[in-house]
């Protein structure tokens, strides 16, 4: 009887250990998605969506194999097209996330540069912010600035816009590949939000 109880006890301990190690392992993998150098936050949906896409592709592959009848050839072709599109997207996404470090570094430099140009007015209060949409060309020259959201304070908007105007050119984007440039820097938002 005693032997049985000891065995049961150890088995419970072992199960708890397995459970705990699983929990620890799971949280570790989530942490990996935040980058440390510049506090860049990648939304975790990225991973989930990728998995969803993969699963969908798998199920489609299965269905493609199963279906043999002539009537379904058209839909089959369509599905293959979809599938190829998904694969293409997935591949591009992979490339973009490989570029994340570069994007992060450029973003950090741009933020530093503009912070050195921005003279914050005294009317700026915590919680106030203004958004500007910047269009830049392949050489990094700021071609168009559009105010997307006003802070409600004239001097604040003026000072922010003035910092952008003074900046004129983001030289760092010249060495980026076309796809990453198009995806991130050809058009982006600058938010001025005093702390």
């Amino acid at each position: 009887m005693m032997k049985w109880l000891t065995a049961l006890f150890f088995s419970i301990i072992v199960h708890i250990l397995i459970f705990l190690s699983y929990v620890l392992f799971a949280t570790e993998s989530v942490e990996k998605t935040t980058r440390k150098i510049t506090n860049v936050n990648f939304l975790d949906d990225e991973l989930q969506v990728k998995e969803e896409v993969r699963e969908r592709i798998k199920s489609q592959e299965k269905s493609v194999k199963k279906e043999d009848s002539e009537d379904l050839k058209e839909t089959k072709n369509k599905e293959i097209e979809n599938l190829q599109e998904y694969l293409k997207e997935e591949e591009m996404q992979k490339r973009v996330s490989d570029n994340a470090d570069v994007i992060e570094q450029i973003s950090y430099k741009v933020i530093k540069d503009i912070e050195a140009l921005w003279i914050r007015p005294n009317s700026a209060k915590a919680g106030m912010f203004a958004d500007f949409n910047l269009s830049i060309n392949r050489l990094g020259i700021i071609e168009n600035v559009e105010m997307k959201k006003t802070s409600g304070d004239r001097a604040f908007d003026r000072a922010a816009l003035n910092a952008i105007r003074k900046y004129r050119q983001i030289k760092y984007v010249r060495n980026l590949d076309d796809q990453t440039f198009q995806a991130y820097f050809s058009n982006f938002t600058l938010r001025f939000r005093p702390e």
Partner: protein
Amino acid sequence: MKRIIFLLFLAYEFKADLVLEITESASKPVKIAILEKNSNSLSGQEIINVISNDLKRTGEFKVLGMDELLSIPMNESEVIQRDWLLLDVDSIIFVEVQNEDNNLDIAYSIFDISYNETEDKRRVLGLPDSLRQSSHYVSDGIYKYFYGIEGISSTKLMYVTRNSDTHKLIISDADGFNEQVLLKSNNSIISPAWSTDAKEIAYVSFENNRAQVFTQNLATGKRNLVLSSKSSVSSPAWSPDNKDLAFTSTKDGNSEIYTINLKSKKITRLTENLAIDTEPAWSPDGKNIIFTSDRSGSPQIYEINVRSKLKRRLTTEGNYNARASYLGKNEIIFVHRSNINFNIAKLDLGSRTLEVLTSTKNDESPCIAPNGNVIIYSTKDGNLSYLAGINISSKVSFKLPALYGELKEPAWSPFLR
């Protein structure tokens, strides 16, 4: 903290939305040049001088001198943008003196270099003898355009001077010019205070050999003794609606805080305590009064609700905190002793963070400019008292020229417009 936010909308669209957040700003002044438009007149130069000095004193502007410029345009159409971009100039201010019907008006426009166009055009109407005051109004307009809050160049200062045995209560422009003597006495004058509509002042005079509070109408010069009492009455403070005056008196034995309704002369006693309670100051909404009390053994700042008379202690750090006034709703400034020095400090009533603002040694009587961004106080260099100031946002400190032996007890006027 820098934050870069990538919003990746994957399966839907392949365009990533990059948001870069700018949270910190450069702590450098706005660079400008002030030029006279289409002319080079004496009055124009004088106006430009006054404006330059006003803006330089804030520490928030760098005004370029004529010798620093690459080109001198007579008007907006002559501006060569490249020259000014090289100098990293933000804007050029074009000033134009307009003499019409004996009045001296000043028109000014702000030409933004990076836009290469005029962004703001205004005109200050002035009387023939008000060149300096009109120029101060121009300075305030320029300040507001760049910094979003009202400028204080057109406001007034009141202070007390002492030269051997002569005491004078004086009002001057915020730059120390244009002094007017309000009261001359052989006895001490202390604690001058402006009513919030700037029509009257209150002060303590020892002319009858004890501290008495007087009010004085600035237009008529008429004086009123607020309370005739054989004991001392001091530290007057106007309520925000100017109906009441808070003061300190020993009329019931020891120093307590009272308020008096100036119309009905009804007196309300606020504190009741064996310790010394003094130096009352009203909150901006008129609901509370802060004062100095040594009830805990050392001078500390307390707040009392005028209606409910509920009290709370505000300062806990250090063994000397006195002469407090509100800076907006949530902050107070006061004299704080750190180590052996007396400095002006600021306390955030929400976060309880204390910040020492000055680096001089024997600072006293701080008062706040009506825009809440400049503090002026009296300090000592050896035995000589003089007035010094500090700009809260730029942290730039300045000194007011002392023409007299001693300059102390400053009080800043409200906005005069």
